């Protein structure tokens, strides 16, 4: 086969990457569908039947809030049961704590912690419900579900950190429209969702998870004032403390009891005040957005996490006995609230009215409520199924009996139509019978049953619809990714062959193409092991374990290989050769042992993934010891980081001038980072003062400009003239110049990246950053002294693996919960989603990016080796070796993981953990892909720039001569 030209490789690679991006985006769009939604907001028209459109046209745009309120009252025929609502959200409170599980009462400990609430339940004053929260069980999507009733898509989670205004039709908006004055205290997510709705508010951050006291105090301190005030109609209290207690200590934390008692006190206070001041009818609604696992985490789909609570206190018609607690869906809260408070049901709600809450109303009004709910759901169905009209039923006679319609089975449209018509007919017949006063109870209950039947079927179908997947798009996406992966791998294979042919020709080594070394085989099998392990949800949760296991095994194999070659060298040479040889071996052994040791410390730094978060590890130990221990670690890391930077610089001693300039470019930002650490970084609370922000911004600017400046300027000043002046070796001087500038640029990249990380990462992560750098430098050192050279792809692959192992060693896991949000606001003076997003990406992908950037140094080392071996150097060959390899290896490896993981996600689409484990992991896989693209682009453009600049200068020199 003809050798690949550089242009061909470039074009094919770009094509493959483009295909991959297209395939990936198609897959993501297909797999994580947008939720079924109608645009617009429910208004008065929602009180008319969607089936038989009457001629009435409401002109409601110009109604004042008061008019609108009375219009709703008139249209709905349902008198609102309450005037005021106190919505108390206890973040993360599992219903099990209060209502027990499976008809068993709650544990004694929890019962004792909340005596008042339990007494309310026992007396029947309060009604409790288990509200099933849909995964992902994270606060923002759950709040959205509660107020808008819509079933969210998974992509909502991705937006969880950048909460934005909720534009869908929702209860808060509806209340706002009828002129309610609303007050909110607690989680500021509410303020982000509804920025203009609240008359008074005090938002608290939910980021500082360790704070379990102050967050709740900030809510409760307003309570006395607000309970005395009469102007509000809706009071929202969002308590975060319980969730924080869970995150820090799990369900059985020692803080849990006091926290529950505190919540009980709040409920008691509110209930007392409700009894005391008779200001209208007030409903106290205590809800939780999600539950928590034993360890206090949430996000997944387990019973513990989805078992949220709803307590209704102050229902007018309570039967005085504790009942078994019903399980409803969280979205059911929306229509229930809407009907209780006399507003239209939000347009995208998929919830079903909780009928018991309306028991105080008359039968007619209850049926009307069901009818309104059915109409709203029917509209939503119509948006999904355009054929659904049921217009044939419009002409049904007034006394058309429901029983005449037989079993409902055929396609979806007809089933819905039939169920709806049946219910509507029964309702009609009950109404007509009521006039004559006959057969009342029977018809009434059968109408209720028919409505419920329709609502349940429709609601289930709608929520299933939210997870429906278009097969064609998915297939297309997967095929695209597969093709691009195959192209990349074929290119890599072809390149391997080409380079070998050239190498064998030039350096007279016998063909070793087909002799596989142990490390090569293992580097291959790591891919297989990882792909296999991705099929298991717990291995995804504990992925740090696998990466560490794999990298350290491959390092142990390298150690074994080093031992293997110890006496295989030719020993008949002179003593000086032996001396050099043994020195080389000592360096080799020590560097690989160094890599192993630092790898082990990195592993011990953040031990647990998802299930093992409670395992003791170095970071937790240090955090417990307090800042007195963390700060020295940080300072020592900074010092050692700079030292290792200088050590790596020292290898380029001949280029003294450059070394000094580059060295200075490290020292200055390092000094500023040092200043920041000493001056501003205290305990866990990030400093947000103006001067701190300014300093951080200054550091960004200096790191940015010095890196950029060096990268741009260095190739222009690197000498290319051969000192000896041999014309045959001129090319060689050029390539030595290129290699040297790539080495310096690579070093600048990684040191500046590490300095940036020291600034951005949590203080506890400073030592891992240093260890990662040391690991990478040591493995460079190892590969530069190893003889014979392993294949370049093995080296690049192991760099990639080191980067991935480091990603997990920095405390990242495959859940979205471990993304460090606090650092993302460092140096950002005004809230900017894009800037914070970039910073978050920098923090999360610190290690893989470091590994990718260090590939420049690997390129430089490699090209120097080829220069030593080769007599005359061919540009084509050098480019292939220095540019094509480092780009293709990460891209190829990543494409394998991407395709494999996409396939696994497809296979697991019905798995219990698909939303909690597999989908977040897929988000990470996508982000890693983006990171690889970015890193490869940086590496490729730097190499390209260096080559072209130095080549240009060479040409000019030739011309001048």
């Amino acid at each position, binding site marked *: 086969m003809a050798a690949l030209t550089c242009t061909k490789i470039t074009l094919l690679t770009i094509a493959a990457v483009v295909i991959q991006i297209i395939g990936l985006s198609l897959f993501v769009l297909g797999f994580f569908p947008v939720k079924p939604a109608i645009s617009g907001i429910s208004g008065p028209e929602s009180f008319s039947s969607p089936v038989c459109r009457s001629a009435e046209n409401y002109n409601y745009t110009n109604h004042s809030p008061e008019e609108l309120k009375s219009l709703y009252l008139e249209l709905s025929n349902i008198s609102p049961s309450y005037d005021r609502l106190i919505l108390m959200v206890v973040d993360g409170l599992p219903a099990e704590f209060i209502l027990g599980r499976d008809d068993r009462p709650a544990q004694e400990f929890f019962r004792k912690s909340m005596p008042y609430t339990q007494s309310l339940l026992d007396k029947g004053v309060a009604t409790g419900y288990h509200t099933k929260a849909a995964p992902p069980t994270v606060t923002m999507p759950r709040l959205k579900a509660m107020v808008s009733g819509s079933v969210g898509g998974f992509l909502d989670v991705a937006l969880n950190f950048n909460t934005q205004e909720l534009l869908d039709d929702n209860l808060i908006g509806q209340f706002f429209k009828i002129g309610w004055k609303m007050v909110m205290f607690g989680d500021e997510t509410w303020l982000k969702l509804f920025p203009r709705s609240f008359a008074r508010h005090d938002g608290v951050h939910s980021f500082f998870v360790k704070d379990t006291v102050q967050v709740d105090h900030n809510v409760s301190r307003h309570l006395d004032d607000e309970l005395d005030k009469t102007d509000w109609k809706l009071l929202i209290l969002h308590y975060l403390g319980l969730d924080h207690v869970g995150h820090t200590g799990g369900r059985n934390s020692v803080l849990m009891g006091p926290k529950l008692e505190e919540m009980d006190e709040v409920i008691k206070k509110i209930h007392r005040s409700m009894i005391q001041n008779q200001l209208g009818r007030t409903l106290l609604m205590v809800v939780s957005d999600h539950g928590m696992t034993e360890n206090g985490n949430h996000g997944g789909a387990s019973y513990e996490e989805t078992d949220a609570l709803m307590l209704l206190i102050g229902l007018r018609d309570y039967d005085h006995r504790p009942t078994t607690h019903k399980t409803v869906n969280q979205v059911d809260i929306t229509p229930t609230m809407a009907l209780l408070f006399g507003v239209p049901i939000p347009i995208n709600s998929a919830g079903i009215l909780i009928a018991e809450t309306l028991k105080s109303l008359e039968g007619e009004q209850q049926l009307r409520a069901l009818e309104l709910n059915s109409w709203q759901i029917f509209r939503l169905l119509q948006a999904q199924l355009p054929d659904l009209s049921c217009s044939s039923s419009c002409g049904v006679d007034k006394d058309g009996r429901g029983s005449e319609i037989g079993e409902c089975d055929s396609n979806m449209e007809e089933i819905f139509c039939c169920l709806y018509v049946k219910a509507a007919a029964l309702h009609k017949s009950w109404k007509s019978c009521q006039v004559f006063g006959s057969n009342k109870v029977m018809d009434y209950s059968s109408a209720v049953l028919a409505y419920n039947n329709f609502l349940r079927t429709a609601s289930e179908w709608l929520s299933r619809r939210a997870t429906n997947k278009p097969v064609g798009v998915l297939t297309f996406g997967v095929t695209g990714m597969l093709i691009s992966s195959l192209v990349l791998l074929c290119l890599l294979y072809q390149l391997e062959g080409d380079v070998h042919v050239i190498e064998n020709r030039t350096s007279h080594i016998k063909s070793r193409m087909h002799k596989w070394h142990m490390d090569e085989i293992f580097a291959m099998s790591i891919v297989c092991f990882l792909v296999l392990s991705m099929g*298991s949800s*717990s*291995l995804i949760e504990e992925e740090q374990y696998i990466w560490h296991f794999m990298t*350290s*095994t491959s390092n142990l194999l390298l150690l074994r*290989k080093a031992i293997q070659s*110890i*006496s295989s060298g030719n020993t008949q040479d002179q003593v000086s050769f032996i001396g050099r040889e043994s020195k080389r071996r000592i360096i080799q052994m020590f560097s690989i042992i160094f890599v192993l*040791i630092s790898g*082990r410390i990195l592993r011990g730094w953040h031990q647990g993934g998802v299930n093992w978060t409670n395992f003791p590890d170095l970071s937790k130990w240090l955090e417990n010891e307090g800042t007195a221990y963390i700060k020295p670690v940080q300072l020592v890391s900074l010092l050692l980081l700079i030292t290792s930077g200088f050590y790596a610089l020292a290898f380029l001693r001949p280029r003294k001038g450059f070394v000094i300039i580059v060295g200075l470019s490290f020292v200055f930002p390092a000094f500023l980072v040092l200043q920041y650490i000493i001056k501003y970084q205290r305990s866990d609370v990030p400093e947000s003062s103006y001067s701190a922000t300014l300093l951080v911004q200054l550091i960004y600017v200096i790191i940015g400009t010095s890196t950029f400046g060096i990268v741009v300027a260095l190739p222009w000043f690197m000498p290319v003239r051969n000192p000896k002046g041999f014309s045959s070796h001129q090319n060689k001087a050029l390539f030595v110049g290129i290699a040297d500038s790539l080495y310096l640029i690579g070093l600048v990249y990684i040191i500046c990246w590490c300095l940036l990380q020291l600034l951005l990462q949590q203080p506890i992560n400073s030592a891992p950053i240093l260890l990662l750098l040391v690991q990478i430098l040591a493995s460079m050192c190892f590969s530069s002294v190893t003889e014979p050279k392993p294949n370049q792809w093995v080296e690049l692959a192991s760099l990639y693996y080191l980067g991935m192992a480091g990603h997990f060693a920095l405390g990242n896991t495959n859940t979205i919960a471990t993304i460090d949000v606090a650092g993302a606001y460092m140096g950002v003076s005004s809230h900017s989603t894009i800037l914070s997003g970039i910073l978050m990406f920098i923090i999360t992908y610190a290690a893989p990016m470091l590994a990718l950037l260090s590939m420049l140094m690997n390129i430089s080392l490699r090209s120097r080796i080829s220069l030593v071996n080769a007599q005359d150097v061919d540009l084509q060959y050098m480019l292939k070796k220095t540019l094509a390899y480092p780009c293709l290896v990460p891209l190829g490896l990543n494409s394998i993981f991407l395709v494999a993981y996409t396939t696994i996600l497809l296979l697991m689409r019905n798995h219990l953990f698909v939303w909690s484990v597999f989908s977040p992991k897929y988000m990470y896989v996508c982000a890693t892909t983006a990171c690889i693209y970015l890193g490869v682009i940086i590496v490729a453009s730097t190499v390209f720039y260096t080559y072209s600049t130095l080549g240009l200068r060479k040409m000019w020199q030739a011309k001048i001569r």
Partner: protein
Amino acid sequence: MEKAKKKLPKMSTSSNGTVLPISSSYTIFLHVICSLGLALAFWIAHNVYSINLVDDPTQTLCLVWVIEAPIVILLFSGFRQHPNQCSYMKAVGRGLLGLPAGAIVNALGAIALGAPVGIQHFSKTANWSILMSVFTIVPTASVFGSSWTEWQRLFAQAKPNGPIDLLICLPAHGAVIGAWFGAWPMPLDWERPWQEWPICVSFGAMAGYLVGMVISFGMSLFQKHLKKE
């Protein structure tokens, strides 16, 4: 120069037979005894002390190596290299020295791969690594002593020749590979007691050791067969 000298014994091993000649039936005997040692240890643990690996890993592992180590040392010392220059007792002594040395090597390897460090894990790790040492290092120490070339040949290059080499090399590699695979279930969330360090790793190591035994047995028979032809 030294290295050149060290190369010599290896040559003589194959040609002059400085290792005692070994008969086919004796090979079978060796394999069976080594495997039975393990079985015996577990039988005693189960019936005499009524402990097992899952509930009481430390004591069981201790019992297993206490029983297996003498068997291995005594058996393999009989096949020491250069039997004329090295007495039986010296070979036993080498084996006994190899026991803690190998344990340290194994423990370091395991810790590098992620075995937990800490005082509460010390006894488990110690007993496990002594057992691994019995499987891997001790036989070689008894037979070859401190001959670097032989160690390198067996472990770094994995080039055994002759039934004794096979009997040393294959089960040792089997034990290491088995232990490596044995670590795989540890992060799974099955919440079984045997997922703890070092229980499943020990199971893996022993299974690998036995598999290595079977393969070495098969290969030594096969090689005999080849020679005869």
